[in-house]
């Protein structure tokens, strides 16, 4: 007991010594970073993509020469206001829990007659090659701006996906022993200069989820949530997940349920 007390004392002293020296420099860095983020916020290139997405939504395309205007994201055909904030959810017609991207692709296949492999070939943009899916998801996401995330995951299939998502969140592997929880399981941490949300809490998950889709200045592109999560797996040094695969959807159920109640601010802009 006494030994434990001494440990704590020494530990606390060392921590305190560190905290003092760097504080002044750190607060200056934090101020300038806040200015940087503020300067970016006014003038988000994602707005340009949103306009493009709106046009693609209404345009008659594909073998069936149909628009996407009858696509049902869970609130009824063509009802987009607040739909993104309530995904993923269980869909009776497919018998599956789907996220915004799997549902969108489903509509492009069923309503417009595209082949899934064709329409997902360009699921994210590269310099000089735009992605219809990126534009459409930006547009659909923006239709939930200002609305609360609401994924209660009460349907048994949704509940199961939540549990699968939680399992994946804590599952460690790879040459760095990584899981999602390593970086996103604690409050008030940052990686380099970027704040890391504690995605197991409402506040952390909410802060993270409310701004997607988001324009990433380091990438020069809007990233969808699938893109975000698949790249997290790359950073964890895992092999590459399949686009629209179940563990990516399950992670979204886990995160969206945790974030439920947070008001959307999308499209976002970040590093």
């Amino acid at each position, binding site marked *: 007991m006494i030994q434990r007390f001494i440990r704590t004392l020494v530990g606390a002293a060392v921590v305190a010594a560190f905290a003092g020296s760097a504080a002044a420099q750190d607060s200056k860095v934090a101020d300038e970073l806040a200015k940087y983020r503020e300067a970016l916020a006014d003038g988000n*290139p994602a707005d*340009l993509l949103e306009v*493009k997405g709106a046009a693609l939504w209404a345009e008659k395309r594909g073998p069936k020469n149909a628009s996407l205007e009858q696509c049902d994201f869970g609130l009824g055909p063509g009802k987009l206001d607040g739909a993104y904030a309530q995904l993923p959810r269980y869909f009776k017609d497919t018998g599956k829990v789907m996220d915004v991207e799997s549902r969108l692709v489903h509509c492009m296949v069923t309503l417009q007659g595209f082949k899934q492999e064709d329409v997902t070939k360009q699921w994210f943009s590269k*310099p*000089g090659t735009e992605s219809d899916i990126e534009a459409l998801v930006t547009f659909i996401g923006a239709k939930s701006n200002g609305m609360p995330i609401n994924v209660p995951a009460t349907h048994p299939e949704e509940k199961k996906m939540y549990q699968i998502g939680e399992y994946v969140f804590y599952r460690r592997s790879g040459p760095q022993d990584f899981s999602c929880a390593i970086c996103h399981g604690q409050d008030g941490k940052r990686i380099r200069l970027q704040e890391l949300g504690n995605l197991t809490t409402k506040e952390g998950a909410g802060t993270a989820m409310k701004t997607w889709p988001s324009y990433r*200045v380091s990438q*020069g592109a809007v990233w969808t949530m699938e893109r975000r999560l698949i790249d997290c797996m790359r950073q964890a040094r895992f092999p590459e997940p399949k686009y629209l695969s179940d563990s990516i959807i399950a992670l979204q159920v886990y995160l969206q349920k945790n974030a439920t109640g947070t008001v959307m601010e999308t499209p976002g802009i970040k590093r």
Partner: protein
Amino acid sequence: MAANPMKIRANNKDGVTEVKVLISHEMETGQRKDASGAIVPAWFITDLTAKHNDRLVLGAEFGTAVSKNPYLAFRFKGGAKGDKIVVSWKDNKGETRTDEAAIA
């Protein structure tokens, strides 16, 4: 590929009009390599003009260091609600685009 439209916002306050422009453009530096290791040729906006009705209010020349999807903000005296702001750009491949907005 036809260029996407710009987003132009113009607001008049106390006789000064503030214009903010967002442009959809790759702004390739000519120094990046693609997956196969080949240099991606430079492709960037070189010139831009902004006019209030028919009067030039800003001329700009860009190099490759201007960010992808360029952003521009400036202020000029005059302009009234409803007046037209017309922005045009031209890139090094000769492609051009013109969009306009009304002062709010």
